[in-house]
């Protein structure tokens, strides 16, 4: 009977742990995606600056 109680608890714990592990994988995936987006933003920001500079120059009277 004791074994039975233990087995039941184990079954429940496994389901709960699997749910927790999935959340951890989700966190990792989200972090990867965020990292990529940030680096994309930085590239765009710097290229936007690069584009903006000659454009500004062009408006200046020669």
């Amino acid at each position: 009977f004791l074994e039975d109680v233990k087995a039941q608890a184990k079954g429940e714990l496994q389901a709960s742990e699997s749910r927790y592990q999935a959340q951890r994988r989700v966190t990792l995936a989200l972090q990867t995606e965020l990292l990529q987006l940030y680096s994309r933003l930085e590239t765009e920001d710097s290229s936007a600056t690069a584009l903006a500079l000659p454009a500004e120059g062009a408006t200046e009277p020669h």
Partner: protein
Amino acid sequence: MAEDPQRNFRSAYYEKVGFRGVEEKKSLEIVLKDNPLDVEKLSTFSQRFPLPSMYRIHVWKVLLGILPPHSDSHTLVSRCRLQQFQDISSALTAMRFTHTHTPQTELYLRMFQLENQKLPRRSEPRPADDEDENFLAISRAMEEIVDDPVDCYWLVRCFVNQFKIKFGDSIPHLPKSLEHFLSQEDACLLAHLKSSGSLHSLPYRLWFRRCFAGCLPESSLQRVWDKVISGSCKILVFVAVEILLSYKILLMGISHPDGVYNFLSNLPQDNTDAIVTKAIDLWHKHCGTPMHAV
């Protein structure tokens, strides 16, 4: 139980008049009343008999460990399973991997990839590899069998995982096993397949990696999967043997391996129930019927 002549007579009678299922359904109901469930008994039952369709999903879930043996825990565990499904699928939506119009099977694949840390980068998408394609084929078939998407994902996920863990080492040997049993059943057909070079290019991936998903219609397929889920990958060999035997005359007339491959990859769907029934009989004949008391 099996030695009881009275019972055997009765079973034979039921079989003849088409009531064979009645007795089996009753004995399954008795097994399902156990708490905790005896998983061993359940697998023995599924090895011996076709599962009544009203209990199939439930039995599969227990056999695949989606539900634990203790019925008292089913509510709690089902809630965990549901939450896990929701957590993963909503993260995929947030990451814009999936949209409202994404096919369910693709969602399942992404979920499975995420859980296994194999999600490709969105900026560097890669085409689906063999394993992805196998997963998708199994998902498409499971979708036809199971209505609830949460159940469907869990069944595909655990089916694929269990298949890999339990049978991963045996799968590469199945073509050899097929050759062995075909030589016993029809040496002439085997000789033809060998001499035409077809034996090495049979649709083994469809048969032994996808477990006939996309090859057999669901009504036949689920009877094969009953056996796979309850612990046998040998059944796959016998289904393949029976397919070959059923189309022997036609196959004997095809001399090009591509022709054989193409025909078998697009199998006519009208005769598959009979093929599966014969395959299960042949499997029992060669591998014996599990004799645990049910």
